[in-house]
């Protein structure tokens, strides 16, 4: 099954809406609660990344019986050094974003930890694509 969500950059008020919706869908599909938790945590981090750094973005969620695949596409500044961005504690978040309690530099490492496959590609000045997969069966 395929679902799409739109994310507006800078709108922290609505950050987390896509995650909440996906959570509800996965509950209805009787996915184990521990796996739902991992997917939702990763998705929420990704969603907040778009809100914090990009101008706008789209989230595509594909649910199959054995895995959930999520693609987060954004139009934004891009990531110049992905390796650096993956380091725990590293963040380019603006002081305003940090004041709001985001931008601790744990977003990407946290996504990696909660997913089975993760891939980032980015073009500076154009945007970033983050893809992750969580397996539903051992």
């Amino acid at each position, binding site marked *: *099954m395929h679902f799409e969500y739109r994310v507006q950059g800078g709108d922290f008020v609505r950050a987390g809406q896509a995650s909440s919706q996906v959570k509800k869908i996965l509950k209805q599909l009787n996915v184990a609660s521990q796996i739902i*938790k991992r997917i*939702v945590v990763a998705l929420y981090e990704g969603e907040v990344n778009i809100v914090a750094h990009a101008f706008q973005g789209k989230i595509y969620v594909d649910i199959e019986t054995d895995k959930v695949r999520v693609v987060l596409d954004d139009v934004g500044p891009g990531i110049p050094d992905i390796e650096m961005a993956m380091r725990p504690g590293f963040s380019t978040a603006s002081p305003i974003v940090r004041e709001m309690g985001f931008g601790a530099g744990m977003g990407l490492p946290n996504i990696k930890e909660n997913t089975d496959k993760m891939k980032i590609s980015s073009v500076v000045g154009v945007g970033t694509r983050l893809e992750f997969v969580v397996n539903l069966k051992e």
Partner: protein
Amino acid sequence: MRVCPTEALRVSEGKAHLLENRCIDCGECYRVCPTHAITVEQDDFTQIFSYDHRIALIPSVLLGQFPEDASREQVAQALLNIGFTSIIEVEDSVEYLIVKLNEYLRNNPNKPVISSFCPAIVRLVQVKFPSLVDNIALVRPPLDLTALYIKNSLTAQGVPEDKIGIFYVTPCAAKIVAIRKPEGEEKSEITGIINMDFIYNRILHEVKHGIVPTEGARVISELSPRSHTWALTTGESAHIEGRCLAIDGIWNAIEFLEKVENEEVSGIDFIELRACDESCAGGILNPGNRFLAADAIRKNAGEVGLWNIDGISQKIKDYKERVGSQTGLQPLSPRSMLKLDEDMAHAMLKMKRVNRLMCYLPGIDCGVCGAPTCLSLAEDIVKGRGSVSQCVFLQKIMEQSKLDPSHSFRIMKKIWGVNRFRKDCDKPVSNK
């Protein structure tokens, strides 16, 4: 129907029906029912006389129902007159519980810990937030601890267990269900439940006739100020170590649990959650006003005066000795209500059907079909307990081709009952 936080109500044959596995016993429907058609099952009062030791377990909220004109002793005397042999407050175990809860928090990595105090909240987490079930504190609530303490104390004095009757005067429906069908324990220690209305009327009657308490008439428990206010909002959170939140009202609780489940909140150690606005002072079976009751309870707490430190530490010691090994609850299991099917492939097919139905349904959640929202009707249809023709909007469309108008009339009568279509100025209407 629409006030139900778990969408457990459906109307058919002119009556509201409850989907039992969704109901969390919060009583929101009881509160708003215009005809008071929903009743709470209670036990027969005369059963108390089958026991030699007839203990009335009363919540501090009961004493809060009589703002100005009744003393503790008068209430105790009235209860003795009815036939009880001793009277004790539910909150007797609170000081011991505070010690135990703080111990539990120090040793538990699943933060935030969710209080197990409110049975409606425990059930809400089980059905709506199954991934948070492990966050519920596996510590028995004060009602159970106090009952257990009384029972163990009496049996230690040689009283046979079948001679002890412990009766609870309840301000809420959820606690009744918690006693009848407990979660996390084999069986409840409470023998029976006494109707709050019955007790309230009886006490008020005696007070109005100027009842004079005799020498022995007293509530045995001597509560500390914080035990008095335990059942009020912030009653728990104010005395638990770490960063604690207190949230009352079922919708507020749901909103916050959503955030906790998404891990949007961090650094919180303990959440006190209560289904009712103003916590137990707002319990659905309380006859009085919740704000006045809360105020009266705070006043009672204020009148305790100096803390009897020695008395409190002695009480904690006594509880430890009598109930120490029975303080914990057994692990709770989730009872998710949201799943469309056990099997994921089937659930996905059903979800596709629900989504397709949602393209046709109007999405205004009028409730005329007997389900609270268009989405819940769509889910009912897919689960085989509803039909497309229940929707008035779709009926109109179907009338253009295959549905006979008199048939759609019959469908509406089937949902709402014949009486709704009669000209009747005394029809029950919601006054909210």
